[in-house]
C-alpha cells in the first residue's frame, strides 16, 4: 500500500468520569479507546461499526483532532498531528470534513443554504463561492434554487444532503460521516446512500463511515472495522466480513439484524 492518508497507531483516549467524581480530588478516568491502530488509503471507504459506547464516534473525533488523544499517534499524509496546536491545525481543517448525524442541530437554522455551504468556503479563502455552492448542490441532486432556503424548509433527507454538499464543496481529502443515515426514513436513507456511493465513485472521496447498522455499511464500504469497548475486534474486507465473520461479536451483530423476511431463522 502507498502511504496511507490517515494512519492511527495504538490510539488511547480517556475522559474524566464526572458521574463518579468524589467531592474532593480528581474524577476517575474512563478508558474509551484502548489501543486502536488503523490505516485509511486515499480513495478508500472504511466502515466503522459497533454498539453504543464502543467508541466509534470518539475514534472519529480523535482522528479529526476534535478530541485530544491520551496516547498513541495520528498521522495525516505522514505528518504527525496527534498533539498539533489549534493554529497549526487550522489549514488542515478544510481538508478533513465531518458530516453529523442530525442535520437539524448541525445546520444553523438562521442561515440559508447558500450561507451554510458558502460560509466555510469563504472562511477558507475559496474563490467563486456562488459557483461552488451551485456545483455542490448539483452533486447532491438538489435544485440550485434551494440555495435560498432555510433548513426548516427542507425534509430530513434534503437536510442531510446539504450536510454532504457542505462537506464536499471544500474538496476535502477526507470525510468522516458519523451515523449520517440513522435518523432518516428508509426512502431518504436509500437516496443518501446511493448519492454517497455515486460521489465516492465520481469524486474519489476518502471516507470513514461510522454506523451501528451493518446493512448500511455493506452498501457503501470496501473494508470494515468492528469496534467493541474501545478495541478493534475484527478488521476485514466487507465481503469477507459478511461471508465469514471471525469475531464472536461480529457474528452476534450479524445474527441480531432483523431482515424484512418472516422466514429468517432469528429465534
Amino acid at each position, binding site marked *: 500500500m502507498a502511504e496511507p492518508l490517515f494512519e492511527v497507531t495504538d490510539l488511547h483516549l480517556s475522559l474524566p468520569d464526572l458521574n463518579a467524581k468524589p467531592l474532593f480530588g480528581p474524577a476517575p478516568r474512563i478508558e474509551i479507546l484502548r489501543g486502536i491502530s488503523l490505516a485509511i488509503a486515499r480513495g478508500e471507504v472504511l466502515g466503522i461499526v459497533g454498539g453504543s459506547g464502543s467508541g466509534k464516534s470518539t475514534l472519529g473525533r480523535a482522528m479529526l483532532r476534535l478530541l485530544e488523544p491520551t496516547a498513541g499517534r495520528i498521522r495525516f499524509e505522514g505528518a504527525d498531528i496527534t498533539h498539533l496546536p489549534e493554529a497549526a491545525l487550522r489549514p488542515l481543517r478544510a481538508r478533513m470534513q465531518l458530516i453529523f448525524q442530525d442535520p437539524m442541530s448541525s445546520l444553523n437554522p438562521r442561515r440559508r443554504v447558500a450561507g451554510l455551504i458558502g460560509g466555510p468556503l469563504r472562511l477558507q479563502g475559496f474563490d467563486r463561492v456562488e459557483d461552488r455552492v451551485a456545483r455542490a448542490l448539483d452533486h447532491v441532486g438538489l435544485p440550485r434554487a434551494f440555495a435560498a432556503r432555510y433548513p426548516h424548509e427542507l425534509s430530513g433527507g434534503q437536510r442531510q444532503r446539504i450536510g454532504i454538499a457542505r462537506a464536499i464543496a471544500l474538496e476535502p481529502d477526507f470525510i468522516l460521516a458519523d451515523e449520517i443515515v440513522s435518523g432518516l426514513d428508509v*426512502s431518504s436513507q436509500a437516496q443518501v446512500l446511493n448519492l454517497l456511493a455515486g460521489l465516492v465513485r465520481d469524486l474519489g472521496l476518502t471516507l470513514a463511515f461510522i454506523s451501528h447498522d451493518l446493512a448500511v455499511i455493506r*452498501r457503501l464500504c470496501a473494508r470494515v472495522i468492528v469496534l467493541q469497548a474501545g478495541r478493534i475486534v475484527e478488521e476485514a474486507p466487507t465481503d469477507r466480513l459478511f461471508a465469514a465473520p471471525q469475531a464472536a461479536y461480529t457474528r452476534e451483530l450479524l445474527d441480531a439484524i432483523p431482515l424484512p423476511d418472516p422466514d429468517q431463522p432469528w429465534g
Partner: protein
Amino acid sequence: MSFLELRNLSVRLKGSGVPLLRGVSLSVEAGQAHGLVGESGAGKSMIGKAVLGILPRAVEVTGGEILLDGTDLLTLPPAERRRRIGATAALIPQDPLTALNPSRRVGPQITDRLVDILGWTRAAAQARARDLLAEVQISEPDRVMRAYPHELSGGMRQRVLIASAFAAEPKLIVADEPTTALDVTVQKQILRLIAQMQARHGTALLFVTHDLGVVSKVCTSLSVLFAGKVVEETPVGDFFAGPRHPYSAALLAATPRHTAPERALIPVPEAVLAAVRAEVEGSRG
C-alpha cells in the same frame, strides 16, 4: 369481533385543522400482534396515542370510532373512558429514560398504579412486581426495585417498562418504537421478550415501528400508513411475499438487506409518492 377496532378515525390539529389521521380503519384480534408501519409523520404513534386516550392537547378527534372490546371509547364520558383504558390497556414507550422518573426508585414506579388505581395492597403489588421483573429475565429483582433509573442500562430500563406494562394484566399493549433507541443485539433480546410475554399472557399488541424487519419478527398482521391513512392492511406472510399496494412495495425495496448486497436500493419513486398522495388526499374521510 376484533379486540380493538378503529373505524374511520380522524384526528386533526386544533386551529389550523391540518389532518393527522384521515379515516383510519384497522383491527387487532385478541392475543395477536399487529404492526403499524410507515415513514415519520405518517401517523403511527398518533394512532397509539388515540387508542390510549393520550393525544396531545393541540390535537382533536373529529370523527370515527375506537372500539375497545366492543365499546366505543369516544362515546364514553372522560372519567369512564380513562377507567376503561387504564383497566384494559398499557403502553411500552420508546425512550425508557424519559418514561421513568429519574428521582424515584424503580420499584414504586411499577407498583404505584396497582396500589393507587387498582386498589392492590402494597405487599401484593411488590410481590407482583418482583415476579414480573424475574419474568423479564432480570436476575436480581430486589436490587433493581431499589435502584434508580440511571443506575440501569438501556436494555434493563426497557425490561422494567415491559414488566410495568404487563403488571395489571392488560388485554392490549401499545408498543411505540420500543427498541429504536437500543443496540441491535439488545433489540433482539427485547423483541424476543415482548413476543414471549405477549404469547404467554395472551395480550393483543399494537406495535408501532418504522422497521419492516422488526415487524416481520414480532407481528402476525400489519397496517401500512401514509400521511394519516392506512394504504394496506394485511397478514405479515402475505405482505413480505408481495405487498399489494405500490407504496408498500416501494418501502420494501428501499430497505437495505445485508444478505443481498447486489440488490439495488431504490428510494420510493416520485411517481409512487404522487399516486399515493393523491389517493390519500382524495379519499379524506
